[in-house]
């Protein structure tokens, strides 16, 4: 009775309510969560790349070269633009828009009930809001080159991946560095915003993975939820370590040194060239 009654009033969104809810949950894990994992690993190569240092090569140098190789590898993906649109931008837009709508249906009450799970509930929503803003800024400035949003008007350049990223986080153009600048106020703000945004998104993914297991009915007993919570927390800590190490790696990188390494690096680019590279 109730079912038939409510269904007669339903629009297409309500009829597919379950599907949309589950797709919202799914897109958070695949592709967005999996992409986050790869993205942070790639970025951190400026740090872990140093472990691969060759004889007579400065640690920093190998980090910059490894990161450049990673970027070149990604940029060599066939139909990259289509992969970006259907694998990233559309899922992120879908997850964000539905997420903002769903978040509006609740009202946090941590002031009265300050239990950990309840705080995580509120932080999940807050990290979603801030995360959407951060992602928009991140993609607009680095991918779409909206340099007017960038202190110093720095544009990220995939051909000089590490040095231009260091410039972005310093908020200073090459010319400004020549004139003796190191970090501008704008650069400090951008760096802090990156620290905050990335940390919140890592949290959002780790906690989302924990709640997704309940939503889909994978973890049922309290013990199972605790066990899965340990796994998610572990993954969150690992991702946080990757995120922070890459940010600190780029923030402490000297753009001039990095640019010099990249200049010597250009010419031996792409996976095919790497084989020749190792014969030196």
């Amino acid at each position: 009775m109730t079912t038939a009654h409510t269904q007669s009033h339903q629009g297409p969104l309500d009829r597919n309510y379950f599907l949309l809810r589950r797709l919202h949950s799914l897109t958070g894990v695949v592709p967005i969560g999996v992409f986050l994992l790869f993205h942070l690993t790639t970025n951190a190569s400026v740090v872990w790349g140093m472990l691969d240092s060759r004889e007579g090569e400065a640690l920093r140098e190998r980090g910059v070269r490894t990161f450049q190789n990673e970027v070149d590898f990604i940029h060599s993906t066939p139909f990259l633009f289509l992969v970006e649109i259907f694998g990233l931008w559309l899922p992120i837009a879908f997850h964000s828009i539905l997420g903002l709508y769903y978040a509006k249906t609740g009202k946090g009450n941590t002031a009265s009930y300050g239990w950990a799970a309840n705080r995580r509930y509120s932080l999940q929503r807050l990290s979603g809001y801030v995360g959407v803003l951060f992602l928009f800024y991140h993609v607009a400035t680095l991918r779409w080159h909206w340099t007017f949003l960038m202190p110093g008007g720095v544009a990220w350049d995939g051909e000089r991946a590490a040095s231009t990223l260091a410039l972005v986080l310093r908020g200073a153009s090459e010319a400004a560095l020549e004139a003796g600048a190191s970090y501008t106020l704008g650069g400090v703000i951008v760096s802090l915003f990156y620290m905050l945004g990335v940390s919140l998104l890592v949290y959002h993914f780790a906690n989302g993975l924990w709640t997704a297991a309940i939503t889909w009915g994978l973890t049922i007993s309290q013990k199972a939820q605790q066990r899965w919570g340990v796994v998610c927390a572990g993954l969150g800590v690992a991702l946080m370590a990757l995120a922070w190490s890459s940010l600190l790696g780029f923030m402490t990188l000297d753009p001039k040194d990095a640019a010099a390494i990249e200049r010597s690096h250009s010419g031996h680019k792409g996976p095919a060239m790497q084989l020749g590279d190792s014969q030196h």
Partner: protein
Amino acid sequence: MTTTDHAARAAARRSAKPGRKVLIRVKRCEGPGKPSRFETFAVTIERGANIISCLQQIAANPVTVEGTRTTPVVWDSGCLEEVCGACTMIINGKVRQSCSCLIDEYAPAEGDVITLEPMSKFPVVRDLWVDRSRMFHNLKRLRAWVPIDGTYSLGAGPRESPDAQEARYKLSTCMTCGCCLDACPQFLLAESPASWDTSFVGAQAFGQALLFNSHSTGAQLKNDRLEVLMGPGGVVDCGNAQNCVKVCPKEIPLTEAIASLGRAVTIRGFTRFFTS
């Protein structure tokens, strides 16, 4: 409740002296849509006093600490032994039954203050009395019953295993008090019954849906229940804040019930997509 809470409450009970005066601060409201205000009453505490006995004292002599004579405070109560849920209210910011709330634990010293407010997610009728009929609406929405009505005897039901009975017993102790809903950040006040068919159901009726889905005769309506749980306001809207299980006075495993229903609707979703 954690063990430290238990220890703190036991210590408070031991230190409490009978005959002390305690201040009861009550959120007053004269009727639906009327503005609310706080009034404070000084009450002399006898050994074993609870919130209800204090409210009875206030009703007998409704004079505030300022000496103003006011109307008696209105509240709802029934069994006075924490099995009916009628006297549920917000005590010092947290929802619970007032009959089982001992003054010695909450206000062990002279002049201590206890604040009483009506539940926040149900329309106020007057003072501490709220209209909780939305919970009954949600039980109807989810058909939370065993369908046995008919014109002839159906005979004995299927044999039930003790394990299944045990699992269901905990769920069956729900007294529809509404603590889980009041503490839930996803369950919001909805004054108009018109929105009750699509607004969030909440842990109370989720527990009952699982109770009757796991009953072999009740399971005849299983898919009907799952359809509602998959729609707007269903179990898919749960945000996993898990306050429900912490405030439940009957310690019903509500979060496990929600996860079980999550699994059931996942399976139902696949079945619906690939089979029916």
